[in-house]
């Protein structure tokens, strides 16, 4: 079979630094090639080069040959949809560019991407994240592209959605499209890819058939990457401890819609409570009620038996220090105008009156692998994974009794993720961990709470919930995770 994609010695340089350095690969129709690697290793840059694009300030050289049309599913699908256009109009516009009956073309593309046709009357903001992703996929599929480039299609999706996306891509490939997959999610790679190219700092570390590379890695880097991947295992039961943080009948709403209904939970000292659920089920809202960022909730949050003021403004320094939060989106939780170090150190200054906050901050940053050179840059100079770690240190400097972590592993490669999980496991405080990744949950959690559309549908020890799930959502989440791990394409 002749390759439809042929890349030879691709280089991308920005400001004297090589972002991509001598990448070569080829891909035939109906096959899947995965580019894997840590955050910042050059995946997106390579993917854009296939489209003949590059970020401003980046110079690209080398040979890129693509036969036929190429479709692209970008890393953030929400940003790729025009907020003021209904979906239908844009689809008709795209269809008009191709030969054939427009209605037919759109219908086919929607069917292939599993987008219900009645979504066409909506605006992008009226869709869930997963739906947005599928809509963008459908847009790329109109008129049968020869090649599809999908950039991190599963990042930040819950296991059920993630599995759906994998299924969709699989069926697209089955129809003869060549797929270039840019991801750090090895489960997805196993599920979809025929070949894997492992990138590290822009260089190809290892390449070959998926089974060869992932199951019998030759390079130490690849081996480490694969080894660090957590698996969903059913943990054994640990004895319950005296509750530190208690939630009683927490009910929260965003304007008129109730997003949390009568949720009661507890976490003991040194325990880890995992909160899982599909996207939009209310996990972040729950976290914000606990840390005082959603002061209008009903019910009560208690720390060591004493009710915590609902609003951050009413909390004393000690109370502030005792409950800390790591935001879901690390980049937006930093002030872009100040260095990361100075921002991280402020916690120690304000909440503990530390005399040498900077030294303390530097030490803890170093412990999570961030050196001084990195920390003294502004947030824009750090990768997503680095910022996530900095945000964690910022919270930990308060020496909290309760730490609430919202999706802190989603943007990370397996190696970085593993080191972070080790750090969390060693924490003496109570941890509330919000995660889509049940493998992470299984690794850390003592107790698991499952939220579904604002209701607490399951709550118990990790062994019970993960081992003997009773609610269909839990079963769904868990089942899909297992599937993702075990299913392999042949």
């Amino acid at each position, binding site marked *: 079979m002749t390759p439809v994609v042929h890349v030879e010695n691709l280089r991308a340089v920005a400001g004297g630094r090589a972002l991509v350095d001598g990448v070569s690969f080829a891909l035939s129709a109906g096959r899947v090639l995965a580019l894997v690697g840590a955050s910042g290793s050059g995946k997106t840059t390579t993917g854009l080069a296939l*489209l003949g*694009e590059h970020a401003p300030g980046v110079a690209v050289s080398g040979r890129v040959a693509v036969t036929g*049309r190429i*479709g*692209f599913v*970008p890393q*953030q699908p929400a*940003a*790729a*949809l*025009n*907020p*003021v*256009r209904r979906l239908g*109009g*844009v689809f008709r*516009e*795209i269809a008009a*560019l191709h030969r054939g009956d427009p209605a037919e073309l759109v219908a086919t593309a929607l069917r292939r991407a599993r987008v219900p046709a009645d979504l066409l009357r909506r*605006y*992008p*903001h009226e869709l869930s994240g997963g739906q947005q992703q599928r809509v*963008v996929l459908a*847009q*790329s599929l*109109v008129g049968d592209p020869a090649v599809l480039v999908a950039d991190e299609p599963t990042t930040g999706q819950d296991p059920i959605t993630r599995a759906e996306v994998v299924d969709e891509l699989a069926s697209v490939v089955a129809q003869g499209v060549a797929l270039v997959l840019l991801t750090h999610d090895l489960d997805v790679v196993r599920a979809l890819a025929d070949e894997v190219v492992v990138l590290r700092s822009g260089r190809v570390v290892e390449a070959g058939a998926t089974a060869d590379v992932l199951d019998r890695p030759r390079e130490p880097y690849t081996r480490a990457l694969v080894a660090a991947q957590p698996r969903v295992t059913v943990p054994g039961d640990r004895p319950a401890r005296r509750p530190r943080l208690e939630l009683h009948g927490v009910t929260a709403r965003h304007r008129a819609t109730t997003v949390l209904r009568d949720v009661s939970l507890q976490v003991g000292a040194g325990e880890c409570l995992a909160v899982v659920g599909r996207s939009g089920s209310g996990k972040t809202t729950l976290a914000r009620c606990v840390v005082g960022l959603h002061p209008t909730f009903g019910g009560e949050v208690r720390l060591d038996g004493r009710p915590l003021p609902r609003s951050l403004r009413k909390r004393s320094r000690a109370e502030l220090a005792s409950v800390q939060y790591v935001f879901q989106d690390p980049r937006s939780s930093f002030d872009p105008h100040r260095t990361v170090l100075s921002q991280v150190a402020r916690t120690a200054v304000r909440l503990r009156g530390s005399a040498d906050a900077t030294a303390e901050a530097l030490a803890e940053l170093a412990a999570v692998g961030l050196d001084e050179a990195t920390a003294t840059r502004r947030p824009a100079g750090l990768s997503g994974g680095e910022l996530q770690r900095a945000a964690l240190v910022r919270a930990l400097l308060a020496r909290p009794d309760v730490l609430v972590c919202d999706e802190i592993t989603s943007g990370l490669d397996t190696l970085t993720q593993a080191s972070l999980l080790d750090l969390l496991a060693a924490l003496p405080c109570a941890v509330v961990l919000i995660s889509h990744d049940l493998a992470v949950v299984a690794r850390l959690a003592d107790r698991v709470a499952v939220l579904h559309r604002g209701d607490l549908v399951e709550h118990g020890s990790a062994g019970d919930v993960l081992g003997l799930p009773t609610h269909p959502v839990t079963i769904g989440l868990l089942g899909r995770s297992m599937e993702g791990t075990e299913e392999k394409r042949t």
Partner: protein
Amino acid sequence: MSLRRYAVRRLAIGAVQVLAVVTVVFLLVQALPGDAAVALAGDNPDPRRIGEIRAAMGLDRPALDRFGSWLWGLAHGDLGVSLVSGRPVVAFLLDGLGPTLVLAVLALVLLVPLSVLLGVVAALREGGVVDRITTAITVGLHSIPEFALAVVLIALFGVHLRWLPPTAVGADLLAQPAVLVLPLVVLLARPVCSISRLVRAGMIDALASDHVRHARRLGIGAQRIRFAHALPNALAPAVQQVARTTDWLLGGVIVVEAVFVVPGLGTILVDAVAARDLPVVQGLAVVFAVTTVLVNLVADLIGFRLAPRSVAIA
């Protein structure tokens, strides 16, 4: 919130606003030095005569009493009669509304395409010569008061070159469209500048956005990208500005009306304030406030359509 419920709620707030506006205007007019009798007496301010005029106008009744009966009339759709001429206020408003509406509507009809065109052209050539020249001109024009621009245009095109009639004196605006050219140019100069700058800024942002980049990848043509994808995003702030311009236009383009002799609402307003003709000022305030409320409502509804996201969040 549904569009209709939103509109109904806004209208209810609007009614309260109108009431508040007329109250404020009443208080302000009461606070003006002198009253209608003094103004009418003019350079013959014999106190006895002023007293007689005051009695004839009913100004000797307490202010609250007069305001009360005016409000009572308003509730019955009656705007009262002019203190000075005794003609019904409605007749004044109808007289002035025609010319002002002709000017305002024509200005609006021209304003939107003109400023969009200018803004888009400047944005597509961002940083280029065309962009810099339009920027300098729009900023310069934006700071020139209408009267100064009008003086120059009249002197040049009306008097010196004789290409266009220098005023609209005694003319029927619709029958002799030539008289409208200069007033419209003067009227449009400032709003076109401000709105085209907004469109330009919005367009530049939109052209650099991810969704436009994505649309390009999908192979959509350059023209469609510019006008169907980028432009709608650039229009939302411009629509708000257009709404405010409408208010300005309907609020009587006093200067333009005076310089070009268009007997519209602006002229009536100035005269009525000078004559302290309270019912007429009040009637105008009602018209202005109602228009402002409606125009802003329409702008918000259009904004709802143009930026569905922001309204949903707000």
